[in-house]
């Protein structure tokens, strides 16, 4: 499932693998950074996600800790923002196939919120 690929990419800090989980026209919103005194992220498009996470993984100290996949759309984890840990939920709002369970499912919209 694409949610497992997402978790794997996040844990491996692999920005290309992460971007590959998304459809070309997609969006990723992350509302956790403001809790850590940073700007929230509003990313539109697969390339922007790839570039942004390339930077976050390399310089931003971002990491996904102790992930627990709740279901095909939800992962519960600790988001590490360069040492500031925020309990978070990543929720796939939409996939290209509507179910998010197929081998080739791609994410259209992902929202990360404080848990």
């Amino acid at each position, binding site marked *: 499932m694409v949610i497992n690929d997402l978790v794997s990419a996040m844990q491996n800090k692999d920005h290309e693998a992460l971007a590959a989980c998304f459809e070309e026209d997609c969006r990723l919103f992350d509302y956790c950074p403001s809790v850590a005194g940073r*700007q929230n992220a509003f990313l539109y498009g697969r390339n922007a996600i790839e570039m942004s996470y390339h930077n976050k993984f390399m310089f931003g100290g971002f990491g996904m800790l102790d992930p627990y996949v709740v279901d095909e759309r939800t992962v519960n984890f600790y988001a590490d923002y360069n040492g500031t840990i925020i309990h978070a939920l990543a929720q796939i709002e939409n996939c290209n196939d509507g179910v998010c369970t197929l081998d080739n499912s791609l994410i259209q919209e992902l929202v990360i919120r404080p848990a």
Partner: protein
Amino acid sequence: MGIYVITGATSGIGAKTAEILRGRGHEVVNIDLKNGDIDANLATKEGRAGAIAELHERYPDGIDAMICNAGVSGGKVPISLIISLNYFGATEMAHGVFDLLEKKGGSCVVTSSNSIAQGAARMDVAGMLNNHPDENRIIELVKDVDPAVGHIYYASTKYALARWVRRMSPDWGSRGVRLNAIAPGNVRTAITANMLPQQRAAMEGIPVPTHFGEEPLMDPIEIANAMAFVASPEACGLNGVVLFVDGGTDALLNSEKVY
């Protein structure tokens, strides 16, 4: 045609800007450490004073633009050089030719950096430069700082330079002299050609969206075109602007900073 003075135009962004301006028929004066039309060490008070005096002697009726582009990146050079050249080498030169710019209603452009938006700058250093710009005291303060942290001081000087533009531009603009800053992204230079693999990997972690999937470094011409425009009369509506010329890196990393 106009008289455009540019510092650090022997190579890189400065050389490309000079080439563009000469191609448009302007007289261009390159002030650089060597191989310039005026050779001067702008990291020293004496060098700056000599260059300013030379410009007054050559162009008593004024100049059309002053482009303060000379600078040095951090990592290998003394911190004192970063501070003296990047900040004082720009602000002192701009102040020194203000009267010449005023005579012709000219403009001043300084080269900042898009690194000012990436959180690397030390605000205490930037504060000292902007609020208490005593070069000797600041140099004394940093004399024992390890050059390895030069990138922090680089970002600090470039941040202070951009803020100096914001602070000074209302007054200068009201007196007929526009003052703006260009904030380039990662640009291909002689130094980047010899980067170590880990340095290149770090550089690629600051992506340039318009170069996605291609050469990650910008070409100096991309910056120079913007610099030539901002310096020109066609940009008469621009004053106090810090223009990010970075292919969208700042938008990527700071999309929520609309203003």
